[in-house]
């Protein structure tokens, strides 16, 4: 295990598989229990340091830490000393002083968790930074793929939509390729970052063509809030070109699954019938989130350093 989980690129194939196997074991251990709580991290302190609102992600990490019996401190930057101008470094010193064993950091600036990791002794987990990465979401997605398709290796996976702003896409590209999947990114050219040629993926602008026979299709949220300017002409045109509807759903392999990290824009990115239809694992992705994050916290905090 690396000391921190800042990027999906920090994980080797071996360590990624170790996390997924541990997730599996934790899932089994909990399934058989009346009280779904393990004593593993009793006495350890996990801080949820959220500079950006994300109730879903915070609740998921909080539940994960509590089910491992850790003490959880939620630190929201809103209404705190941060909004009075305290710097990230000052906050790091505070967390250091209270003895945080792990810091789950969500931040609107790319690289902020990386910087934080240089200023604290605790383990830092990137819970989403700017338009950079969200490695635990990629682990959740890989775990979900494995559960449904048996393995990630050799699977053909299409990731569709707002790649340029998507930390989920960046982390998934790294992790899925480390695990041996063939990844295709589909988006209008305006939503693909310049320099993508260096990524271990193929790129296609034609959704229909890319879908033929794939094992999993992963839809991304279109981040309208990050789009100061037009990246595409209209939502109607986007939906026609890159939305997942019933007709396109039929192009995927029979066993194929449909994924979305949420929150979804129904009707635009994905039609309600596909989101709730056969092969959709969207709800399960959320449920898997807690056990994957338990595995990550457990492995980081129990590693001997």
């Amino acid at each position, binding site marked *: 295990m690396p000391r921190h989980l800042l990027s999906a690129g920090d994980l080797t194939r071996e360590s990624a598989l170790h996390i997924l196997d541990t997730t599996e074991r934790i899932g089994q251990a909990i399934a058989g229990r009346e009280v779904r709580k393990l004593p593993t991290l009793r006495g350890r302190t996990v801080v949820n340091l959220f500079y950006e609102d994300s109730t879903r992600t915070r609740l998921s990490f909080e539940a994960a830490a509590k089910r491992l019996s850790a003490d959880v401190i939620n630190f929201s930057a809103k209404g705190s000393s941060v909004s009075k101008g305290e710097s990230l470094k000052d906050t790091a010193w505070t967390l250091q002083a209270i003895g945080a064993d792990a810091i789950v950091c969500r931040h609107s600036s790319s*690289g*902020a968790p990386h910087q934080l990791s240089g200023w604290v002794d605790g383990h830092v987990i990137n819970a989403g930074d700017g*338009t950079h990465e969200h490695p635990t979401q990629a682990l959740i997605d890989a775990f979900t793929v494995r559960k449904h398709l048996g393995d990630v290796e050799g699977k053909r996976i299409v990731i569709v939509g707002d790649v340029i702003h998507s930390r989920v896409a960046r982390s998934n590209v790294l992790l899925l390729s480390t695990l041996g999947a063939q990844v295709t990114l589909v988006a209008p050219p305006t939503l693909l970052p310049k*320099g993508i040629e260096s*990524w271990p993926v193929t790129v296609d602008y034609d959704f229909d063509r890319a879908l033929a026979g794939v094992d999993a299709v992963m839809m991304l949220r279109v981040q309208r809030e990050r789009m100061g300017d037009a990246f595409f002409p209209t939502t109607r045109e986007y939906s026609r070109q890159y939305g997942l509807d019933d007709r396109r759903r039929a192009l995927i392999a029979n066993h194929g699954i449909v994924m979305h990290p949420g929150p979804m824009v129904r009707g635009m990115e994905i039609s309600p019938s596909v989101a709730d239809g056969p092969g959709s694992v969207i709800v399960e992705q959320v449920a898997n989130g807690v056990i994957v994050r338990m595995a990550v916290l457990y492995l980081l905090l129990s590693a001997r350093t």
Partner: protein
Amino acid sequence: MSADLAILITGALPYGEESQDLLLVDGIIAAMGQDAVTHPDAAGAQRVDGAGLIVLPGLVDLHTHLREPGREDAETVETGSAAAALGGYTAIFAMPNTDPTADTAGVVEQVLRLGQAAGLVDVQPIGAVTVGRKGERLAELAAMAHSAAQVRVFSDDGDCVSDPLLMRRSLEYVKAFDGVIAQHAQEPRLTVGSQMHEGAVSATLGMTGWPAVAEEAIIARDCLLADHVDSRLHICHLSTAGSVDIVAAAKARGTKVTAEVTPHHLLLTDQAAVGYDPVFKVNPPLRTSPDIDALRRGLARGTIDIVATDHAPHAIQDKECEWDQASPGMLGLQTALSIVVLTMVEPGLLDWRGVARVMSEAPATIGVLAGHGRPIAVGEPANLVLVDAKAHWTVRGSDLASLSRNTPYEGMELPAPVMATFLRGRPTVLNGQLVG
């Protein structure tokens, strides 16, 4: 009759060539070679051992940010002047993006006087092109030109004069007093939210890119405008291979364009951003290895006329923060010559005469600054720097004279420390230390 101030530099090598003695008397080079020792003023002169040291004309920086008035916690005219003298400079041009902006005769004269009070280098103010650097209407350029500061260089640096009509008018207007517009070439619409060079590294780091074309498009446009109105244009801090090509083509056509490159753009690439340390955040951003190659070749060939530091001090809190919130810029004055030696002299792309040209003569000419960038010859002003080309030094931000610490070279061992600097025959630096 004895001189007020006489210094005999023994055994130094002008332009790295033949060993000579130099006698500096009352601000000028009074004698060289055999004549220096036999000169009547040599007897009472203070002796400076220059054995084996390279002598160059005092360096001239066309692009320095001094932060005063307004951000005296980051740098003052005095501390910036000290950094400049220690870096071998005898004159620096102060960019006008201060608070208040140097866009009136009053502010440029204030900067000039602060420079004179510090007395370590000649501080020549640059005036803003537009009021408040807002890019909306021309500042009173003639008033600054005719003020005590005698401003000849005008720039909205930090921002681009992006309105093509305003750019045309400013180029035309400054012809009346042999002025030059120094353009920070950055198409603002193509760089909204930009954090670093747009390419493979920005894609991986998830940072909004600053594409090369945003610089190149403005340079191409401005060269055409300068041609059209037959005016002098200077391009600040070229950073891309494409920019070098465009300037080369414009020069071949006869455009009155000059260009500068910073030391950091000759050495560092966008890979430096990988650790998200904002000390490497700079505008224009660090580019790629092919860009560095093109910039070095452009400088060697003369397509790029000068090296300018873009010395940009920032207080700690403006750098020790999230990358996207950090101020862009790096310290440059005390490391510039070493980086030029490392990137240009050691690989054989430039000799010492070339260094004198790009770091002293050409910047003084572009900025129309009399008394600097002159040849090392009898009768010329004694603005000189002595460099130890055989020695090395280790960069420690805490040892630098600047009030700020944002050097990208922390801990690096660099060649060619500056041993002494003379401003009008008076030492400002001796043995690598400030004098007085």
